């Protein structure tokens, strides 16, 4: 993969954001991200196919038929094959998989992938309705007003009960702090302007089930975001066509792409078992162990999801995720820097774009182009890992990367 591009993640937290003023629409986000990547690969003429990932534009923006926006990105994409992909919050990861498979099938040497979501068209309370589409609709009626926060609050409650509340809440607050501190280093991050001094205290705000949910506070939740990310998936042949050296690309060395039954409740609410399987498959197909991973972008739609993901990957044993975080292993100075530009909580979560954004961040980190957010990638642990989750641990895409050589 090469030529990653992120728009701003726009929403509360950004100084430019004013909910009362008119903002760019989805077409502007799609175009900015698409053109950003096209510029880096020498233009639309090099592109064979296009994939656009989006979750819920049909409700947020009352727009469908999204693949037809590619010729709007660049006239050179007119009459080229394109497809729209959807898998809730794993949409971006699935869009990447679609592109990867085209390249492997040799139907394309260069695939342009864009993922986006423009969600600030409605208040958070209606946003919750739309995003609830990531769960089984038959559960919506009995679900919480804030449906997904409610699902993960229940998971957090179960986890508190099994492994203790105090330490877990402290670890969630630390997760929040790490996310914001990382976001402050990335100019496109939604929390880039965050200047709060005592992030631990904010993260420890007591949850209030009367106005929100029982076991998580608003700082435990990812943001409502407008944003788009784009990247090019290329074969070695395609790389030559674009005139980009191998060292500026990252290689996809393995993946796990799996689905779990959307109509079933979690087998065990204290663990992300589908995530565990997806990562296991990704590592196995890459032929590496988790100890060879230098950095990871994981799906922290909620802090508790981040914690459980540490256990699902196997970085921490079951029930030890809180210790792993509190001991500093996930911080940018820690053993495995996680979500180095803020993740879903700090950078933002434009749902359909998140999976692509994760790939862009890994590309930047592994090729030394992450700017102020750059972390050191140890020579003996050269791999980057992404985990992109749709719904409550239902649609999963996990990819292993390493720098081209």
């Amino acid at each position: 993969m090469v030529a990653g591009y992120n728009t701003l993640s726009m929403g509360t937290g950004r100084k430019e954001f004013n909910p009362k003023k008119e903002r760019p629409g989805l077409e502007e986000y799609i175009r900015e991200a698409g053109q950003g990547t096209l510029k880096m690969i020498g233009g639309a003429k090099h592109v064979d196919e296009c994939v656009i990932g989006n979750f819920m534009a049909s409700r947020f923006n009352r727009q469908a038929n999204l693949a037809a926006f590619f010729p709007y990105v660049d006239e050179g994409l007119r009459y080229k094959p394109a497809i729209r992909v959807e898998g809730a919050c794993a949409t971006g990861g699935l869009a990447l998989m679609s592109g990867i498979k085209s390249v492997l099938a040799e139907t394309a040497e260069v695939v342009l992938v864009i993922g986006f979501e423009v969600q600030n068209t409605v208040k958070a309370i209606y946003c919750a309705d739309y995003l609830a589409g990531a769960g089984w609709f038959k559960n919506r009626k009995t679900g919480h007003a804030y449906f997904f926060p409610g699902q993960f609050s229940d998971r957090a409650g179960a986890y508190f009960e099994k492994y203790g509340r105090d330490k877990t809440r402290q670890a969630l607050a630390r997760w929040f702090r790490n996310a914001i501190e990382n976001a402050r280093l990335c100019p496109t991050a939604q929390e880039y302007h965050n200047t709060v001094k005592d992030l631990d205290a904010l993260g420890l705000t007591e949850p209030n089930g009367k106005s929100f949910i029982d076991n998580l506070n608003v700082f435990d939740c990812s943001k409502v975001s407008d944003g788009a990310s784009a990247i090019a998936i290329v074969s070695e042949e395609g790389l030559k066509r674009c005139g980009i050296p191998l060292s500026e690309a990252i290689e996809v060395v393995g993946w796990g792409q799996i689905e779990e039954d959307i109509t079933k409740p979690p087998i065990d609410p204290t663990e992300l078992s589908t995530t565990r399987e997806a990562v296991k498959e990704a590592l196995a197909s890459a032929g590496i162990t988790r100890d060879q991973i230098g950095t990871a972008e994981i799906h922290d739609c909620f802090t508790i999801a981040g914690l459980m993901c540490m256990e699902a990957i196997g970085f921490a044993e079951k029930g030890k995720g809180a210790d792993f975080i509190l001991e500093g292993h996930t911080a940018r100075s820690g053993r495995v820097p996680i979500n180095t530009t803020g993740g879903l909580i700090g950078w933002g979560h434009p749902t359909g774009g998140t999976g692509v954004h994760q790939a862009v961040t890994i590309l930047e980190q592994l090729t030394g182009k992450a700017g102020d957010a750059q972390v050191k990638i140890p020579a003996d642990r050269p791999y980057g890992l992404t985990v992109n989750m749709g719904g409550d641990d239902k649609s999963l895409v996990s990819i292993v990367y390493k720098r081209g050589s």
Partner: protein
Amino acid sequence: MSYEERLQHVSVLGAAGKMGSGILLLTAVEMADISLKPENKGKPFVLNAIDVSDEALSGVMKYLKAQVLKMAEKKVVGLRKVYAGNPNLIDNGDIIDQYIFDVLSLVRPSTRIEAAYDSHMVFEAIKEDPALKSSIFSKILANNPHQPWFFTNTSSIPISKLDADAGLGGRIIGFHFYNPPAVQRLVEIIKADHTLPEVEAFAQQYAKSLRKVVVPSHDKAGFIGNGHFMRDILHATGEVEKLGKEFSFAEAVYAMNKISQDYLVRPMGIFQLIDYVGVDVCSFIMSVMNPYLPGEDLHSPLLGRLLAMGVKGGQYSDGSQKDGILKYEKGRPVAIFDPEQKSYVSISDFQAKVDEKLGAMPSPPAWKAVVGNKAKDELLRGYFGQVKVASGLGAELTRTYANRSCAIGEQLVSSGVAFNENDVNTVLLTGFFHAYGPVNNYLS
């Protein structure tokens, strides 16, 4: 008759006014919440919104819809439980729409007083005119078989007078909301000499359901809120006149508005507050209160003069500020009325000059930074400690103003209006959004 039964049939008089529309909103929501309880299924709930103009009433329905939408969005977590039994309401959006419909469908706008003849309760928020209020109350009483209770929103007329004049036999209480009722947390509850205990008990329960802060006041004209506000106005206008030797009228108003806002750390300057309430309303309240205050002349010739020149203030129906003593752009004062020229003079023309004459001042903390700040007492004590020893005209005016405000508060207790100083402070804190109570020792 239980609390809930009494709330099955209610009328609001003056429902299209600024206070009345807020009372209508809060009552409609309270009634709807009761009507949605499973045990009340099928029972009719009626809320008459009575006012003199059809046009104003149609505006009220729009206001209600917009406000109920906001309230429903805030409490949707609870509303999902209320509507759990309705399988057709799935999204938050569905539930919010249904709730708006359920609240609005209780409300019957009407221009006919006869609508109140079936009500068990009447909220009154009409003009501050004792004769008008009494005549309407007695008319309703004569035609209504239910012996209704009257909750008057008067901010100035003694309740016992209304009780006696209308022959209500104690079925009345003062239930004084602050403006705007949907936002301000304070209500003053004023018992008349013969208010029935069950009326008072209902008033307390109603205030509690609305999550209001209740301050009791004795039945003395103006009660605590206007008792302080009107005298505060007279202090400011008196100072403006005194400053007349050195300043033009507009300059003096600017100076006192700045002193009362910035240097006293209040949310709004006194002249802006007069405009907010309305020059006409302030003047009228004084005229209503004055006959009940022997030995004190609560009367502002200055406001009278301005009114005669058509300077009124008040608000547009969308809540934006009309020009009054001050002229506003985007809600901020930009000019001040000059009675001699009969036109507005831009503040920027004289601001620097007046600021210089006021002299160097210790820099005051912003009201926004103080209100709600846990360490506000310390902050204010530090600031006023500097004001105490500062020299210059600004500091002197600030000290005199703060001391007068404190004295008014103490007077409200000593003259038997307020039960205690704490109640006076609570009224100013919650009803006027002051950052601190007037009765304090910051300057002593």
